[in-house]
């Protein structure tokens, strides 16, 4: 089937995100406006206007009412999904790199860059009441990052956060105690993305060391490795099959010196258990920066450095694929 091309951004996509039901698709890019789309037909529902800089991260809570975005303009903004109005703006001391709602949607976490004399910090805020009072409210807790900058993170329920770092380290933090529980260094290069499996017992990481790896949430043991020849920017686990999708490609800064064919900008599909690649999907003409399965597992979306978001519904043959 022909993919849907969502053309609403002027610059490269930084993140795409389905809401829990999968009817909405959020996207952010280096331009200042996150967008929300109907995933079914690719029609744009609206934009969230207000940021002054590139948007690095977005998240939506499970009820699809709260939306937040972290930006290079040194703010984290919280929005009402429905009205597109900015509800609160939290000023930070450096760019906001990652943000994530907790499982309950009552808490949110964001991390800031190590820049302008500031250390990287992980901050937890209470977002039960979404109004401008949040602007000045101080975070519930702050955890300074001694290892290295956080480049990706996810909540596990409401008391643990798993972080992926610039140096390839993966760590888990107990939020109530404000301390590190565990850490492991399996990757040799920056971890670009970290996504949980549907049952939240495993997560897959995407790293610039050209691999994606599968980890156990509790023990952080590496279960599987998916190898490619190019940096991996995003990896996702199918909610219905034992499949892992990887997106990436030649780094954006080198792209001008290589043609589309050498860049390997395909989305690549691997078997979760056997680590074997079984399919590739062409499309983007720049590296893929973010990739997610639809919650029903029947389609997936990818956002690339080329500024496009593509929604691809799987063919019947994909569902009929059997690994003996």
């Amino acid at each position: 089937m022909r993919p849907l091309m969502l053309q609403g951004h002027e610059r490269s996509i930084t993140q795409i995100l389905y809401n829990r039901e999968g009817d909405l698709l959020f996207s952010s890019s280096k331009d200042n406006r996150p967008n929300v789309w109907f995933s079914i037909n690719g029609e744009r529902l609206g934009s969230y206007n207000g940021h002054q800089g590139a948007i690095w991260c977005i998240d939506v809570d499970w009820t699809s009412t709260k939306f937040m975005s972290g930006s290079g303009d040194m703010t984290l903004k919280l929005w009402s999904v429905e009205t597109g109005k900015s509800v609160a703006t939290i000023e930070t001391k450096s760019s906001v790199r990652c943000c994530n709602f907790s499982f309950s949607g009552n808490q949110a976490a964001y991390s800031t860059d190590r820049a302008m004399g500031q250390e990287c910090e992980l901050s937890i805020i209470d977002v039960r009441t979404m109004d401008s009072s949040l602007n000045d409210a101080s975070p519930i807790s702050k955890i300074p990052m001694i290892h290295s900058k956080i480049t990706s993170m996810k909540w596990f329920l409401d008391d643990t956060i798993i972080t992926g770092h610039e140096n390839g380290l993966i760590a888990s933090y107990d939020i109530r105690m404000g301390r590190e529980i565990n850490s492991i260094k399996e990757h040799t290069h920056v971890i670009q993305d970290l996504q949980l499996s549907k049952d939240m017992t495993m997560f897959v990481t995407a790293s610039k060391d050209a691999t994606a790896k599968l980890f156990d949430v509790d023990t952080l043991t590496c279960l599987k490795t998916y190898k490619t020849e190019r940096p991996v920017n995003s990896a996702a686990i199918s909610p219905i099959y034992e499949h892992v999708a990887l997106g990436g490609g030649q780094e954006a800064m080198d792209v001008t010196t290589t043609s589309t064919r050498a860049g390997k900008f395909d989305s690549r599909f691997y078997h979760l258990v056997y680590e074997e690649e079984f399919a590739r999907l062409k499309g983007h003409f720049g590296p893929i920066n973010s990739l997610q399965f639809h919650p029903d597992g029947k389609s997936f979306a990818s956002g690339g450095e080329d500024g496009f978001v593509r929604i691809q519904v799987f063919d019947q043959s994909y569902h009929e694929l059997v690994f003996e």
Partner: protein
Amino acid sequence: MARKRNEEYKGDNEDEEFEEEPVEEFEDPDDFVDDVNDEELLGDLLKKKPCETDGMENVIVVDEIPKVEPARQEKLENVIKKLFTTCGEIVNVYYPKDDNGYTKGYCYIEYKSPAQAEEAVKVYSNYRLDKTHTLLVNIFTDFQKYESIPVEWVPPTAQPYTPTVDLYSFLTEPDAYDQYCVVVDNGSSPSQVQFWQNSLPDPTELHRKDKFTEQTVKWSPLGTYIVAFHKQGVAIWGGPQFQRINKFPHIGTTHVEFSPKENFIVTYGLATASGGSKVIIWDIRTGLEKRSFVADPLAPTSIFRWSHDDKYVASMGDGAIHIYETDTFFLLEKKSVKIPGIRGFAWSPTDNIIAYWVAEQTDVPAKVTLMDIPKKREIRMKNLFNVADCKLHWQKCGDYLGVKVDRFSKSKKGGLKDQDVKFLGMFYNFEIFHMREKDIPVDSVEIKEPIAAFSWEPVGDKFAIIHGEGAGGSNVSFFEAKKGQKVSLVKKMERKSATHLFWSPRGGFIVLANCTQGVFEFVDTSDFTIMNTGDHHGAFQCEWDPTGRYIATGLGAHKVKDDHSYYLWSFQGRLLRRNNLKNFLQLFWRPRPQTLLADAQQKEIKKNLKKYYPQFETKDRLRQTRASKELLEKRAKLREEFLDYRQKRIQDYESLRIKRIELRNNVDTDTLEADKDNLEEEIVECLVKEETTFV
């Protein structure tokens, strides 16, 4: 008891000895002969004793120089001097003369250092001064060595027989799998070489040699040997374990050539460690130097051309072809073949015929000539006009000779020198010589566009050319030369991006390759269908296996930073295998000797192919199932392990269910449909397309 007796005995003995100790006398008995020689007595001193040859290590004796009368001596001396100063500064030269003042045919040359003298011996031993004089050079001190050779001949002792390695084991492989070698530059300076067998369903590695060669490797034309390059020279390896067979010490060898029958190897290297170039022809079996030539460093790397049966080797000189007989490595009939204005030549791959072409001169047309060797008889000649350049292309079976002639409609002498000739209005001719027909008829094909590539079908009557260069790409044309008929165009494929042509060694199939982009088109020339188009991005190497069943494409580390890889394809263009190998350099298929079967036998096999077909088919299937069985077993194991782990984790997940529901205000969100009550139906209208039609 025994021991006791023994002790007693011993004791007795001691007593006896004591009694019998002789009284010392210091005088020699009368009949004493002193058998201690000076050597034993003061060997260390004798070593320091000066001898006649001291200071003579710098001196060489050059034999076999011409005997000349006094009037010509100066000229001779100059020639000798010029030759030998290349090895170092000459201090002194002496030419012994007979009573009439004639030189005696040898001379002494003194160098500044013994090293230079040794160098001179190395370089000029067996140097051919002219037709009748081959220099013999020795260090002066060696004469003492030769002096002590016993007069009586002693028969050499028989050496125990050591079986040689089986050089042809690779041909006895029951499934006739072909071999290939892969050169990998793994950081350390000498490269690693891997030997693979292209077995089904997956290739198997036979051997791996670390630090095997300094630059590249080269198979001999029949696949018996592989050459590795080193600083000191080259070595050939072969046999089932790839053992070293022989060494050819030649400093700085950059290029080697084999004779077609693998009797000789030519090394192109340096004359001395410091420079100069030299070409040596070696006998492969004995490892002995047969002949050496001082080469012009500006000359092209490859100067020798071998006849198909190894009988002759030829090189082109100024206005002549030098043909050497390989029995003696002397010129055929002791003289070169004088051909004024010769510009290029080539041996027929199957007959002892040389084709050469002579450039056009004022009022004299250019001509292409076929010459029979050893008779040196002209068997066919063709005059050509307005010729800028010619290229001779023999078809591999020797059935045809294709001459690509670059012609011009106008020429302009430009610049100050007369040699700078500008050609205008270029067009191109192919002169096709039908070698197997009576009187060798010649056909001509004219192409108006520039030719990018030309290639004969190795077995068959077709040739392919890439011509033209437009915005839409170039064209590929196929011509066929039928017996008794004119060469005719059989197919023209337009707008192709191909830059190179690779025919299957068995003919019939061709790969049109774009070696800058790495796009490969697989064409069946029986009906000119494009069977497939393959993409190996950036690949610039393309090699058919010797049987024409597989093709390898390679992207080596000397051209790109990463993505080093080689792919294996079937002849239909199906990608069989991707091999990403860091620092991969090159891949070479191991050649095979020609089949021993006669044409009739081959035809017989082709006819009965259907009979053999099922047999091979079952064999292949069996292998395939075995391989897939292994894969399935591996997968089953992985699955089992993973399920073990998952079982536990699924339980954990279930146990956290209550917590999850609590966290989300008692809404079950575990599955999308879990919370039916809260589901809100929404209708999204999709505007697919709007069209207005005017009636």
